[in-house]
């Protein structure tokens, strides 16, 4: 394998190095790359937003499939642009209220079902239907969930029994945050490996 002659890979590699140059210190090459990234990304997104919202979800259903009531969605969308003027800003409250309330409406039953009831149900266990080892783990899980929830219970002062219980809750939280930190390191390193693989394989051709 050898150095590539593909201009696309050369451009990608040079911009990769331009971003890495920030590690030494902030510099004009990095600033140029950073601003170009914002511009190119915004341009890319704008085209996708326009195609998906205006063409795919409005033009095709209304003017080709004849679903005329969907034009109301378009009117609500246009009302959002009233935010551009301070005098007409209030008009945009209608689509905002519509959007937020629609989300609020379906989030209530869904969250109660999936994030609360099913999670509580999965924490319960029958110690007679499992091995001692499993029962011990299930007990630790149950204690952990209850004490973590009690740690976030602020309607009563954390003293006496509640203080001790919430301290157990903190212990579980710290293990949880530690796991998050460990996975965070793992994720960031993986991203770096990805860039190095690109530079060393696709660009320099020094590894297969």
């Amino acid at each position, binding site marked *: 394998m050898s150095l590539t002659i593909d201009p696309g890979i050369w451009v990608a590699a040079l*911009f*990769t190095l*331009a*971003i*890495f140059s920030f*590690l030494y210190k902030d510099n004009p090459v990095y*600033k*140029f790359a950073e*601003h*170009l*990234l*914002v*511009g*190119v990304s*915004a341009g*890319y997104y704008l085209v996708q*937003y326009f195609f998906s*919202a*205006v063409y795919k979800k409005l033009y095709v259903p209304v003017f080709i499939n004849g679903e005329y009531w*969907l034009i*109301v*969605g378009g009117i609500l969308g*246009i009302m*959002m*642009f009233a935010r551009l003027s301070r005098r007409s800003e*209030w008009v945009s*409250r209608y*689509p*905002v*209220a*519509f959007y937020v*309330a*629609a989300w*609020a*409406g*379906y989030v*209530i039953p869904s969250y*109660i079902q999936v994030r609360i009831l099913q*999670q509580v149900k999965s*924490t319960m266990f029958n110690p007679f239907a499992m091995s001692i080892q499993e029962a011990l783990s299930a007990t*630790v899980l*149950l204690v*952990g*969930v209850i004490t973590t*929830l009690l740690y*976030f219970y602020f309607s009563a002062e954390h003293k006496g029994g509640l203080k001790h219980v919430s301290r157990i809750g*903190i*212990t579980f*939280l710290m*293990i949880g945050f*530690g796991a998050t*930190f*460990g996975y965070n*390191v*793992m994720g*960031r390193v993986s*991203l*770096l490996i*990805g860039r190095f693989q*690109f530079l060393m394989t696709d660009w320099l051709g020094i590894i297969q």
Partner: protein
Amino acid sequence: MKRQGPIILAFVVGMLMMIQFFTPNPFFLSLYNTVLDWKQVVLGCTFILGTWSLIRYHLTRIQRKQDNWRYSYVTLAGLGFMVLSAGIWKTTTGPYPWLFSNVQVPMQSTMFSLLAFYVASASYRAFRARTVHATLLLVAGALVMLGRVPIGAYFSGTVFGVEISLVEISDWMLNVPNLAAKRGIMIGVGLGTTATALKIILGIEQTYLGRTD
């Protein structure tokens, strides 16, 4: 009209979307589908509005010659060129997909990979075992860092006559105490989100409507 109207709209739409969850009535189902279709268009338009705000920000920066204002030309040129490319050569051929694959994606991923270096620096300078809880956090992090990669398989031994490996400890930690903490947080967040959603529908929570007038 300016404030009460949106609050009434929120109540009607919110109640409708909540009720439809519990009824198979075709009328409610049809309204539910229509609201979902409108909602997608509204958000798409909001994103377009967001892009306009970005353009306006950079135009203002150039106009007022603020710090690094010359770079705003780069942003605006990049944005304009992408839109023009899509218009002239379409989105499947020409500069639009080329710039996406060779400029946007490599830079985006490199930008995020920089964090690996800063996490290392922060680990060296700030990750201290000052208290019992901080030590616990550190140990849990270390267990994941070693136990979730191939090198972790080399750490095993016998404790009180029981063969045990770092990978097993790491798995247990993730599947039991870590899960307990995450589930506790999840249930708490679920309750909080539900309460906030209810307040929005009932008009108690109005901050999303912006300034009062």
